[in-house]
């Protein structure tokens, strides 16, 4: 049971992130909610590769014991990089919008509809 806690935490983080996205009206907070979802996915990825008692997967440091899975860590790093690019892009959109519209409220950001 105790070893499954990271997986539950990952699911919980995703749900918290979705709740933030849905309930908050400030665009910056919505982007933060998206970052929370991403953090949850990252946690799930890292947790799938963990072996209890494993060492860091560096070839020259490894004694002949078990190493944790390196693939998921590479995937997590990639996703962090992608996440930074996404967050930066979305935040710069929010900057432009708040300057042009004078508000960051998502319910005011409705010039495109029907």
């Amino acid at each position, binding site marked *: 049971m105790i070893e499954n806690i990271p997986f539950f935490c990952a699911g919980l983080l995703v749900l918290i992130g*979705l709740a933030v*996205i849905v309930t908050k009206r400030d665009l910056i907070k*919505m982007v933060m909610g998206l970052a929370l979802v991403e953090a949850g996915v990252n946690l799930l990825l890292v947790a799938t590769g963990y072996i209890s008692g494993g060492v860091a997967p560096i070839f020259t440091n490894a004694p002949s014991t078990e190493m944790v899975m390196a693939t998921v860590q590479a995937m997590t790093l990639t996703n962090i990089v992608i996440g930074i690019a996404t967050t930066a892009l979305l935040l710069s959109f929010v900057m432009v919008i708040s300057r042009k519209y004078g508000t960051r409220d*998502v*319910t005011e950001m*409705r010039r*495109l*509809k*029907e």
Partner: protein
Amino acid sequence: MIAETLYTGFGAWNPIVWLIALAVALLFAWFIQRLGEPDIPGEGESGKSYISGNDEPSPEDGHIGGSNLYWGFTEAMKGYYARVVPLHTGCLTDYVLWFLGTFALLFILIGVI
């Protein structure tokens, strides 16, 4: 290169045959048009278009804009459009909610819950 017939399992479709038929039909149309009066009315009073004795409208008034077309259709479907158009709120939160709702429906349909 001659187009082969496309068999759809139940019927067939050959564009070349269709194009030949179209060409023949156009030939007939052209022939019939030739039987008509070749002259067009000249300048002056006879050249003007006759709209029940009213003056010809200016170019701005003479064109029917996009919104006026299919007015009857949208009017007849008013009940439908009154429900569907307001769904497109333009609000990002609603978009996310629709996504999550579809996701929940798929969950039930696929049989997770």
